[in-house]
């Protein structure tokens, strides 16, 4: 039988960026939990991810999923110097806000707010978009993330200079680049394989 798309159950469509917890409903059939093989579980990396329809859908190509997840974890969780976690999450939020991924922005805005304790600034970024005035360091990180997210890419030496003036060393700037670049990966999966639900 030919594959078909899924029609999600009735749900509330979020119409604004939010730090609230959202659900994600797939448009294609995830693998069933009981159908997961060792190779699929290896791709999920954390066994708990088998609960997520998003990860069970991506598990259809388990090697790519596993490599994606390990890349993601090191970019955001590696605590060896560089950019503080809060600002890696800020870069992820800015890229997601600019591309328009309400689901991704919700998750990473929560992390940015939690780690920075700057809930009001994170919320202003969600509400007002990537042009809002936060402070110079955050403005520089947001502007760099947005320029890197544009297609064709608009990131240039002026963004690097501004980040350096704001106090980032080159490892921290490389972290901004990776965090924003990674959300150009994540946004496109979350936006195109299913939809958020409030």
């Amino acid at each position, binding site marked *: 039988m030919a*594959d078909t798309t899924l029609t999600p159950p009735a749900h509330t469509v979020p119409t604004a960026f939010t730090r609230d917890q959202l659900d994600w409903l797939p448009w294609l059939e995830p693998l069933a939990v009981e159908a997961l093989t060792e190779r699929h579980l290896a791709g999920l990396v954390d066994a708990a991810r088998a609960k997520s329809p998003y990860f069970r859908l991506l598990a*259809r190509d388990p090697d790519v999923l596993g490599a994606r997840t390990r890349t993601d974890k090191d970019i955001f969780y590696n605590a060896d110097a560089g950019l503080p976690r809060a600002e890696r999450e800020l870069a992820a939020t800015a890229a997601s806000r600019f*591309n328009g991924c309400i689901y991704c922005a919700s998750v990473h805005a929560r992390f940015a707010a939690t780690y920075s304790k700057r809930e009001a600034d994170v919320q202003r970024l969600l509400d007002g978009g990537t042009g809002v005035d936060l402070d110079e360091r955050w403005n520089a990180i947001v502007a760099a993330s947005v320029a890197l*997210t544009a297609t*064709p890419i608009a990131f240039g030496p002026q963004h690097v200079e501004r980040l350096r003036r704001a106090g980032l060393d080159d490892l921290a700037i490389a972290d901004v680049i990776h965090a924003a670049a990674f959300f150009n990966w994540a946004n496109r999966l979350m936006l*195109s394989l299913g939809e958020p639900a409030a």
Partner: protein
Amino acid sequence: MSGPHNDVIDALVGIAPGTALDAIRARRPDARTHAQTSYRALFAPEDFGDVTAVERFAVARFIAGLHEAADVAALYAEGLAGSGASAALRAAVDAAIAEGRTQGPYGSFPPGPLSGENTAGPVYRVGDETGRGLGRRLAAAFEHTHMLIFHPRDAAAPALQALLDAGWSTTGIVTLSQLVAFLSFQIRVVAGLRTLAHA
């Protein structure tokens, strides 16, 4: 295009062992390793499954062309030729790049407070002659890819149905989506690190 440590991002950026950027990448060893593992899993997998090598390289070449990322585009053009793509197909990919170039991200939000941020832009449809060169599956994949690159917030279930109708399987669509998403990452890491190296 393989560099001294056989890492495609290092090769594309021109990162030589012992340089400052080599040391920076070494501080995030899993990200470096698994960006490479991702590339291998997409372009040299154990099993190509539901997406052929020609299709993978054609989509990657198309994406790099849309980004006007010359070095990355050259890598995938080389891969496309090496995968056995015909001259007619390669010409159709080049034609699609010329047809599809624009600037993103644009697109619409769900009706509500964000509607004021809706930004109009082209919805790419493969030209007739280009479509004959690409064939039905790749023509559908290119239209979907163009949306994901330039206006991903317009994605909706009917776009996936169009891929299914053109002969893509559910698992094939997951691989295609990962290809588009990974290339969006790889091109940005290369551009960002190259800028950092020279700034």
